[in-house]
C-alpha cells in the first residue's frame, strides 16, 4: 500500500501542537492553565504554539472574565478537527503499511 507522507500536516510535526490538538479534541473547552498542566510546558512555549494553531484557524479562542481576572478558553474549530483526524488517519495508514 502506498501512503503519502505529504498528507501529514506540518502543523502537527511539533509535539506540543499535537498535544494541544489531542487534548482539545476530547474536551469542549480548556483554559490556558489546564492546557499548561496537561502538557507540562512553560507559558511562553504554550502561547507560541497556541498562536500558531490559531493563525491556522485550527483552534478558536473565547475570552471572558472569571472573578474579574481574564480567562481564555480554547476549543477546536471544525477545520482543526478535520485536519487532526486526517493526520491521525495518515499516521495509522503509515504504521499499517509498514507492519
Amino acid at each position: 500500500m502506498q501512503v503519502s507522507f505529504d498528507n501529514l500536516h506540518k502543523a502537527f510535526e511539533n509535539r506540543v501542537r499535537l498535544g494541544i490538538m489531542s487534548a482539545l479534541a476530547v474536551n469542549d473547552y480548556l483554559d490556558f492553565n489546564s492546557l499548561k498542566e496537561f502538557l507540562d510546558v512553560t507559558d511562553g512555549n504554550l502561547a507560541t504554539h497556541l498562536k500558531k494553531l490559531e493563525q491556522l484557524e485550527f483552534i478558536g479562542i473565547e475570552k471572558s472574565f472569571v472573578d474579574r481576572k481574564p480567562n481564555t478558553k480554547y476549543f477546536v474549530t471544525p477545520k482543526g478537527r478535520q485536519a487532526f483526524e486526517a493526520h491521525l488517519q495518515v499516521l495509522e495508514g503509515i504504521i499499517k503499511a509498514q507492519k
Partner: protein
Amino acid sequence: MSPQSEHLQDLAEIRAMMERSSKFLSLSGLSGVLAGCYALGAAWVSANVFEFNPTSMAYTLNAEHEQGLVLTALATLVLAVLSAILLSWRKAQKKDEKIWNATTRRVVTNVSIPLIAGAVLSISLLQNDLVGLIAPITLLFYGIALYTAGSYTYHDIKYLGIIQIVLGLLACWFVQWGVLLWAIGFGLMHIVYGATMHFKYER
C-alpha cells in the same frame, strides 16, 4: 529514531493526552475498600446501637436515636471522603500528576449535583418520618452519581452505579431489608469494586 517508531510514539502520545485530559484516573481503589468498611461499620452501629430497622416507609424514631444516626452517617461520609482525597492524592503524586485539574473539577461538579439533591431529599424524608425510604433513596442517588461519574473516570464505575440503583429500587419494595441492602450496596459492593480497581489498574 526510525520514522516508523516516531509515528508510533506520536500515536501513543495522542492517546495518552486524550485520556489524561478527559478522564480522572487518580481515583484510588483502596479508598473504595476503606469506604466499604466504614459503611459496614455504620450499618452495624445503626442497626445494633441505635436500633435502626424500619419495617415500613413511615416510621418514627426516638429523638435520641435519630441524633445518633445522623452523627453516624455524617462521620461515615467525612471519613470516606477524606480517605478518597488522601489516597487519590497519593496516587496522583506517584504518577507525578496534579490531582486538582480540569478533569477533577468536572468529576466533582457532576457527582455533587445528584449527591446534594439526594442529601436534601433525605433530610426532608427524615423530618417527615419517612425513615424507611432513606436507605433506598441514598442508594438510588448515589448510584445515579456514580453512573454520571463513569463518563469522566474509569468506565467500570458505571456498573457499580447500576448495581446501587438496582439495590435502591429493591429496597423501596422490601423496606424491612433496607439496612441490609444498604450494607450490601455501600459496604460489600465498595469493597469488591475497590479491590477490583486496585488489582486491575494499580498493580
